[in-house]
């Protein structure tokens, strides 16, 4: 590795000493031209028009070796006093909180140079490169204590004055709009992604990253529609059937759902495990956003419905009094559990539930749509405003979120439910899950996903949902009355968001 560095440093010095403008400029253009699709559109970029103009003339089709050679001319992190630093242009700086997107990029982005990065599917070398020689630099900050967002906020604010530009960052659904509505994201259209490119993506995944002016600011390779997963053995015993269609008929609205809950209780089972289990099905189906245009917090009626339902479930013993991710909550999903079902989305069913169920319950779960459509989870990518690699960012977005073949590949290899309608419908034609006893749950996802409504998502969702659930837990436990819980929520909300007031 040290040798490689020396080699790179030597090459860089030569390059600089020689014809700095000619040679460096050329290699850079040569590097980016493999993404010939994007160059036309990239020309429309506000500040980089001049540089990008030259790209069109050259042809794509650099072999792997050629790209490898070019790389040596491009040493990352060399300080240069050029605005927007030349070195920074050769570095793709991506902010994330975990390794999920890293592995998607490494495994499925065709321009990722596995050889130069020393990537063999598990191990990865000290430095990672794209085939055009751009180095990928990951800035990983854990989620704990809000550290990721703190770090990202500080660095985005410094972006304008920094010559080491952030190119891309990842966000989750609950706080995506915080960034999307802010000034630090480059709209997807400005990167050159067209409506046609994005046509196969689910609408709700776009709504979550669409700003208040209707401009799309991010994309995701995943869709995460949710279903209700239930135990077949309990269904048979209590409802007399484990057939997903018939069970769904008994759970298709909340009144029916509550009736079944009573039956479960009478038979010695719990309908749900914890207080928060059903929260998303309510919070995803609100009639307005958390905050109105007067910057007032307005609690949606549907959320109060969740409060009343959960209170009833807690008082009557329809749930097991757990909280999401508690040990008991996980244990409730195993054969020792006495809980009828769980609201879970794509990844939750494939990984968490399947893992918790273990071998004992292999084939013993089934899924149905449940009372209302909802989603849970997902990761979106945003281009940072001021990125000096807009073409590369655009190309990654296109490859991972618009390319049907790649997305099918992702689904097959990682079980991600990818954000591509036609690909998923194709897959749904013939699919059978061993874990779900042969059920075709992909077909259910494809039915559920278009019904998800994320148009009421807002920048305050993460903070307010968390505070709301926390404040009302005291009410469910019986230590405060409903109004006190609500006041406690308002107080916590205003601590988090001082600009908000309470609607009267």
């Amino acid at each position, binding site marked *: 590795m040290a040798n490689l560095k020396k080699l790179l440093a030597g090459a860089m010095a030569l390059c600089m000493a020689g014809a700095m403008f000619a040679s460096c400029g050329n290699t850079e253009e040569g590097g980016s031209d493999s993404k010939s699709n994007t160059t036309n559109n990239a020309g429309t970029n506000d500040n980089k028009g001049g540089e990008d103009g030259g790209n069109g003339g050259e042809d794509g089709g650099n072999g792997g070796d050629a790209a490898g050679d070019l790389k040596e001319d491009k040493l990352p992190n060399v300080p240069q006093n050029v605005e927007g630093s030349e070195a920074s242009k050769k570095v793709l700086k991506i902010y994330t909180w975990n390794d999920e997107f890293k592995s998607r990029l490494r495994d499925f982005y065709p321009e990722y140079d596995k050889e130069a990065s020393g990537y063999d599917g598990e191990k990865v070398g000290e430095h990672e490169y794209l085939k055009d020689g751009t180095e990928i630099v990951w800035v990983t900050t854990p989620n704990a204590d809000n550290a990721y967002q703190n770090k990202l906020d500080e660095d985005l604010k410094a972006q304008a004055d920094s010559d080491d530009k952030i190119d891309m960052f990842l966000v989750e659904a609950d706080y995506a709009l915080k960034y999307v509505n*802010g000034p630090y994201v480059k709209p997807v259209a400005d990167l050159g992604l067209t409506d046609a490119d994005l046509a196969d993506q689910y609408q709700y995944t776009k709504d979550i990253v669409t700003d208040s002016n209707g401009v799309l600011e991010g994309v995701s390779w995943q869709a995460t529609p949710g279903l209700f997963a239930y135990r077949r053995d309990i269904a048979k015993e209590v409802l007399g059937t484990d057939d997903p269609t018939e069970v769904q008929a008994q759970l298709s609205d909340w009144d029916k759902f509550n009736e079944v809950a009573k039956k479960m209780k009478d038979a010695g089972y719990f309908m749900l495990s914890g207080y928060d289990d059903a929260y998303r099905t309510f919070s995803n189906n609100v009639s307005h956003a958390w905050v109105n245009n007067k910057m007032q917090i307005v609690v949606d009626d549907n959320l109060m419905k969740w409060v009343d339902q959960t209170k009833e479930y807690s008082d009557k013993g329809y749930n097991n009094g757990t909280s999401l991710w508690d040990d008991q909550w996980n244990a409730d999903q195993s054969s020792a559990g006495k809980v009828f079902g769980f609201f879970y989305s794509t990844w939750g069913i494939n990984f968490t539930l399947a893992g918790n169920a273990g071998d004992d319950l292999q084939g013993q779960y089934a899924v149905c749509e449940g009372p209302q459509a909802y989603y849970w989870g997902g990761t979106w990518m945003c281009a940072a405003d001021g990125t000096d690699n807009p073409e590369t960012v655009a190309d990654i977005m296109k490859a991972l979120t618009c390319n049907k073949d790649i997305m099918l590949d992702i689904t097959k290899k990682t079980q991600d439910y990818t954000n591509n309608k036609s690909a998923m419908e194709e897959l749904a034609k013939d699919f059978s899950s061993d874990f779900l006893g042969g059920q075709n749950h992909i077909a259910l996802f494809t039915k559920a996903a278009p019904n998800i409504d994320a148009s009421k998502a807002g920048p305050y969702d993460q903070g307010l949902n968390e505070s709301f659930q926390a404040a009302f837990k005291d009410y469910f436990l019986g*230590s405060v009355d409903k109004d006190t819980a609500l006041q406690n929520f308002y107080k916590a909300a205003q601590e988090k968001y001082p600009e908000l007031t309470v609607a009267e």
Partner: protein
Amino acid sequence: MKHKSISYAKWGYIFIIPFFVAFILFNLIPLVSTFYNSLFENYLGRGGLVQVGPNFIGLDNFKTMFAPETELGKYFGNTFILWILGFIPQIFFSLLFASWFTDLRMKLKTGAYKVIFYLPNVIMAAAMGMLFYTMFAQNGPINSIYMSITGKDSPYMFFDNVWSQRSVIAIINFLMWYGNTTIMLMAAINGVDPSLYESAQIDGATPSQTFWKITLPLIRPILLYVLITSLIGGLQMYDVPQIITKNGEQVQRTSMTVVMYLQKHLYSKNYGMAGALSVILFVVAAVLSLVVFYVTTEREPKKKVKKGGIK
């Protein structure tokens, strides 16, 4: 003697310079800016991205802090309760163990205990919180013991009740720090001239007499240190209750400490409100340490007379 001290005074300054240079650069400058910010409305809206202010608003942040609905007193109270719940057993057992470990008559083999008692302190507080969360969980080992003893068929929800939740936090703090304190007190007791103990033994003093009349007065300085560092830790208490109470919201914030409350304001980078709270916290901390120091060293001056002449 006095004339001598003059020539050495400059060394006093020289030796204290590094401390103050580091302090000014890394503590005072951020602290002053924190205090300065307390006079402004200054935060990032929308969870951290849209700058609001800074607008000068005088003492408004302090007014909000002291407003009854802010319940600042409650958070100070919680902090104190959580601290004292852990500190009382901590000081009691540490003194007991330190006196046992250093008791020449008992001849205890203590090597392994000394190591083991200290060990909980090396786990980071957050991990300790995680481990205890598992232990006291609905289906954790403590509840299986509880259910088998009481014969109940439903677990006790430790994290959903005020005092059980506080007790769990206190237990963690106790377990993390009693070994540390024991070592500290042992070092202090070991510093006591052994001949004092020998003569006490010859005079037939009981162990408890030796402890109260010889050991305790002589390790006072270290006891004071233990008290003060424990207060420091108490005032800063954050990780453990944060994990046990899931961000402090649980059970009506009855285990939310002052620093956890401070963190609530850092969510929106509310430099104004966080600054005001910091000033309050600073004043409380400063007053507390001065009071503790001067109250407990009241009787010291007599001894200092003896040393005074040497300076």
